[in-house]
């Protein structure tokens, strides 16, 4: 990791990177706590440790760009501008949640922010991201789609079909792989015969780049470049961000598969404290300002949890709404 902060970043932007990463980390820790406390009934697949990938990638996108996300999607959603209030309310299965309490962690979406949805199916989001990019290309809109996925999903058939189609049609799509070294409970090296997954891009006729997924600036720059390439009509890019998942595949995972010492080794490269140190040593932001940002995040999350806890539970009739747009006098049920 390059310790110097490049000169072309404003203090405001760097502070935002830091704040967003902190928001993702603290959101996850709070959600885990609230799940234990009983506010949240469903699964949580936390992205603690991967904040730089999620935030760096989303910061490089425009609001009009779209993303598809994964099981481990809270960081992507927050990165793309998702409101912790509505996310927490959705996790708590309440009416004002992003999906009206119908989706939960695995299906959160906000089309106004370009979040086309997390996904409960590993590899399920690739084709839709390609289709969104096709729509942008056909309408000559200056927008891109970015599909987040993991080192597990890249072995799904949908990756091959989608990357091939996107490469063939030079669609404005960015394939963003968060290689966190585990696909569910099996290490990456037991799931594929290669460790550098970016190499696969070559067979689809577009570039594959490897970045330090724990360095928010490196991730940001790679996505920015891929986005410019896509908007110039040069087609997709596969970005492999090498990172690490601190917690289990899901909360409650006994993690029998983890190597001793591995977590501690990665924690020395934790994306948040390392970035904080760089900001302070470069004298861009003071300790006091950092503390202020962190305090603001805690307040925002306190409000989000309160909003969720006070929010109404959906009425049972709502279960029968919203399956179809056109209901043909209710006959579709």
């Amino acid at each position, binding site marked *: 990791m390059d310790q110097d902060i490049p000169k072309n970043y404003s203090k405001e932007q760097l502070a935002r990177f830091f704040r967003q990463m902190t928001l993702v980390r603290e959101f996850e820790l709070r959600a885990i706590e609230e799940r234990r406390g009983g506010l949240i009934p469903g699964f949580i697949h936390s992205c603690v440790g991967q904040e730089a990938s999620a935030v760096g990638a989303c910061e490089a996108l425009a609001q009009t760009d779209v993303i598809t996300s994964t099981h481990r999607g809270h960081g992507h959603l927050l990165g793309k501008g998702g409101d912790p209030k509505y996310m927490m309310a959705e996790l708590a299965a309440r009416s004002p949640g992003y999906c009206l309490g119908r989706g939960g962690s695995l299906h959160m979406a906000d089309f106004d922010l370009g979040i086309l*949805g997390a996904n409960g199916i590993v590899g399920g989001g690739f084709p839709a991201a390609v289709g969104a990019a096709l729509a942008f290309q056909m309408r000559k809109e200056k927008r891109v789609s970015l599909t987040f996925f993991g080192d597990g999903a890249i072995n799904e058939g949908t990756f091959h079909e989608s990357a091939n189609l996107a490469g063939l049609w030079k669609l404005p799509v960015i394939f963003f792989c968060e290689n966190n070294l585990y696909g569910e409970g099996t290490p990456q090296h037991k799931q594929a015969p290669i460790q550098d997954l970016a190499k696969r891009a070559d067979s689809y006729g577009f570039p594959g780049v490897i970045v330090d997924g724990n360095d928010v600036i490196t991730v940001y720059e790679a996505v920015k470049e891929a986005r410019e390439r896509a908007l110039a009509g040069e087609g997709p890019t596969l970005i492999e961000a090498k990172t690490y998942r601190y917690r289990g595949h899901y909360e409650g995972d006994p993690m029998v598969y983890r190597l001793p010492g591995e977590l501690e080794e990665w924690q020395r490269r934790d994306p948040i404290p390392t970035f904080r140190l760089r900001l302070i040593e470069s004298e861009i932001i003071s300790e006091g300002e950092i503390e202020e940002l962190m305090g603001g995040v805690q307040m925002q999350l306190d409000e989000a949890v309160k909003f969720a806890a006070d929010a109404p539970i959906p009425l049972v009739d709502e279960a029968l709404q919203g399956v179809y*747009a056109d209901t043909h*006098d209710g006959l579709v049920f």
Partner: protein
Amino acid sequence: MTRTITYSEAILEAMSEEMRQNPDVFLMGEDVGTFGGVWGVSAGMLAEFGEERIRDTPISEAAIIGAGLGAAMMGMRPIVEIMFGDFLMCAGDQIVNQVAKARFMSGGKANVPLTIRVTTGAPGSAAAQHSQSPEAWFMNVPGIKIVTPSTPADAKGLLKTALRGNDPVLYFEHKMLYGDSGEVPEDPEFMIPFGKAKLLREGSDVTVIGVNIMVKKALEAADQLQKEKISVEVIDPRTLVPLDKETIIQSVAKTSRVVVAYEGHKRSGAGAEIAAMLAEEAVEYLDGPVIRVAAKNVPLPYSPALENYVLPDTADIADAVRSFWN
């Protein structure tokens, strides 16, 4: 005003009319462009609309359907063609877990005006992976509509409704109906609403509910049975989801006897759902069992001798009707 065109031409006409009046409509699929569709349905569309809107794709069913979903969610109105119903399983996750559920899971944020045109039925000696009628596989999946046109007019009117609607539709074209001719209205606004069954023939003794090509066979059986003084009413639901229960129940209230004919496998097929619905909602009208005439529960064989034995036909419907008095 009407004129006589084929089922295949009716589908082409519906697609072309919608593409002329709405730039968001486009077609993609395997061999739909240069080839004109392996069934010839989209012949000439590439010349009229160009490669941008008539897109030949790689053989990648999951990507085709999933890309249709993504484009639809961004406001396009894609038509995707899957060459054989059997191949829908290659895109099973995309249809069942993504396309069908996108609106509900997202709390209504996703709008999915996606029409999946797909062929169904046995074209003769195409064997077990090119002959299936997979409609019922998807009847168990909330979120997707299932359309089964049996005539050129229905083919056009139902496809127009699909293309102007805002939900994902599986539109099943029977391979052995493509060449059938029939009267089709010229009016480009001619549309047939979903969930409205069609009464094709009035009768008083038995109701035969036919799905897709079995409507035609039910009408043939009704002609034969007329000579035996058995009066058969024939109903085509036209859409399996939504299902027009009211028209079916009204007919059963009159005849008290029901045969459901469909080309899919008998077990848990479309007719099983209709029979169960009648048992729940109309048992007081029934004077006997609801009889299903369908394919036997084996994979479809290659040999014509075997295939004809496995598939339901006109004689099977007639025999089922006669069985009420035997």
